């Protein structure tokens, strides 16, 4: 079989694609946020609920790095503790959304047929309904409000969106010959779903997940701003911004720091999601 050597000129290596330093800075910042939220209790921070009436509306100082609010609470401590709510809502809701939406989307796109028609019809009806208004309505009537309830409501509301993205991503892959080839070899549906489909839609899923977390965090902020998130005095970035409205003129720090934290968090998430998508895009890598 000497005439079979199709290998002599060698195989071109993949184009080196790097994620770049900015990507890693963003990852670093997010890690810092997550660690801060988890270990807020053991960090050398003032109790975020402790009201120190001696220093009210103070600017940043050595004692209070971010200053204090109108009740004399330490803003740094409240921003760190507030990230707990944002992160919990963001990751929790997306866990629910992907937990339900992703398997449904993959299954519908892989199986097609009646299952797909019914599921897709239901999801599109749900999508037609303005999700934010639904979330606001449910949360305002379902009292008393707790963090878990907020996570569940937002999570469920995100299911149709996740379903739609995952379904179309899976559809693109499910028509590829290698999926047919796997079927023809006698692979079970489960093997096909996990071995052939999942790795190929994972990049899209991950980048959508990150952008989803960002959206949910914004949504939580909006809810908090409307007073529909966790009850005060528990801090969250959203309700901190809300509370700052009345004292904005005297104490701009109160609005600057939580807003900055929120903005940086969202920026990093979006950037990472975007970067990952182009990094994993096989077609883009192939010249």
């Amino acid at each position, binding site marked *: 079989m000497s005439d079979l050597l199709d290998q002599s000129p060698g195989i071109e290596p993949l184009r080196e694609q790097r994620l770049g330093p900015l990507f890693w800075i963003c990852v670093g910042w997010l890690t810092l946020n997550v660690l801060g939220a988890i270990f807020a209790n053991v960090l050398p921070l003032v109790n975020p609920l402790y009201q120190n009436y001696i220093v009210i509306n103070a600017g940043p100082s050595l004692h209070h790095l971010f200053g204090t609010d109108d009740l004399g609470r330490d803003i740094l401590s409240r921003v760190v503790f507030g990230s707990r709510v944002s992160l919990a809502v963001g990751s929790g809701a997306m866990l629910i959304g992907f937990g339900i939406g992703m398997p449904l989307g993959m299954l519908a796109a892989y199986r097609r047929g009646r299952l797909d028609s019914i599921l897709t019809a239901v999801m599109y009806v749900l999508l037609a309904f303005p999700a934010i208004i639904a979330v606001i309505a449910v949360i305002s009537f379902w009292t008393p409000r707790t963090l878990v309830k907020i996570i569940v409501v937002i999570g469920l509301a995100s299911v149709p969106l996740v379903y739609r993205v995952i379904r179309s991503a899976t559809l693109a892959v499910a028509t590829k010959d290698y999926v047919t080839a796997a079927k023809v070899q*006698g692979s079970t549906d489960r093997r096909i779903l996990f071995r052939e489909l999942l790795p190929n839609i994972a990049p899209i899923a991950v980048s959508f997940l990150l952008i989803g977390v960002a959206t949910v965090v914004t949504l939580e902020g909006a809810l908090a701003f409307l007073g529909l998130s966790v009850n005060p005095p528990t801090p969250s970035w959203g309700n901190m911004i809300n509370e700052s409205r009345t004292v904005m003129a005297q104490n701009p720090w109160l609005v600057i720091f939580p807003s900055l934290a929120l903005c940086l968090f969202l920026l990093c998430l979006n950037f990472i999601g975007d970067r990952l998508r182009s990094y994993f895009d096989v077609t883009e890598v192939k010249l």
Partner: protein
Amino acid sequence: MSDERQPLLKVRDLTVTFGKGAHAVSAVAGVSFDIYEGETLGLVGESGCGKSTTGKALMKIVAPSSGTVELDGVDITHQRGRALRQARTRMQMIFQDPISSLNPRRRVRGIVAEPLDAWKTVTGEQRDRLVDELLNQVGIDPEVYGDRYARQFSGGQCQRISIARALAMRPQLLICDEVVSALDVSVQAQILNLLEDLKAEYGLTLLFIAHDLAVVKNISDRVAVMYLGRIGEIGPSEVLYEAPAHPYTKFLLGASLEADPDSAPTGAVLEGEPPSPLDPPSGCRFRSRCPYATERCAREEPVLTEVAPGHQVACHFPFIAQ
């Protein structure tokens, strides 16, 4: 001669219909043929004639609407679930697009081992050895390339890996659907030779689907010509190419371009284009383009009739050498 042997694959009145009601299209409209053990049957035709759909229907990748497919005397048409999956491992298929045939996110060894892992026929060290052996046989060095991702390979190499994967379960029948049409001429010859080698080594039976008449002639023992969902002519390749009995086969051969400046410039060119399968002509499906068509052709549908041993034609007025 071939009548003595038992056919490995027996296809009877295979029909594949897409859509419903007024939009129903019979991509394959009643196709019957046998493939004998150890032979290569070529299936040629223009795009939309249903040759690829036939191949897919045999593998039940698309569901046949009627007809039967028998593999080694066992009717597999109505099999489902595990039995179907089992039957499929005895037939394998290789596809046209080499790049899309391989999962870009899996490594070569994993791709070739997939059928073995799915069936757990061999495991552990034995499995690894078999995978490397298969890769060696198709001319891919497992030591060098075994752990690369599929997306790092050229079209010809991808097609080799696809062949290795298809052979992993030691199938009896290999369906090749336009496997060389996406490749460069020089690479195409490599793959055709490889298929011939492996056919001898594994005792394979081949169904070779292609639009290129020269390629089909070079690899097939017998050739079937399809037009608009029907088989027009089937016979030993030498006979069919030397003395085509169906007018369509004749035009098809006349239109194929020889790489020879002295070959007669294509004389009689078939006029018009294939009609839409949505609304096929009555009677003989080729009559709308056939210069020899008569009123009988519009009325009566010709059936495959033997004009010489093993040579069947579906035409009311076949060219038969007296």
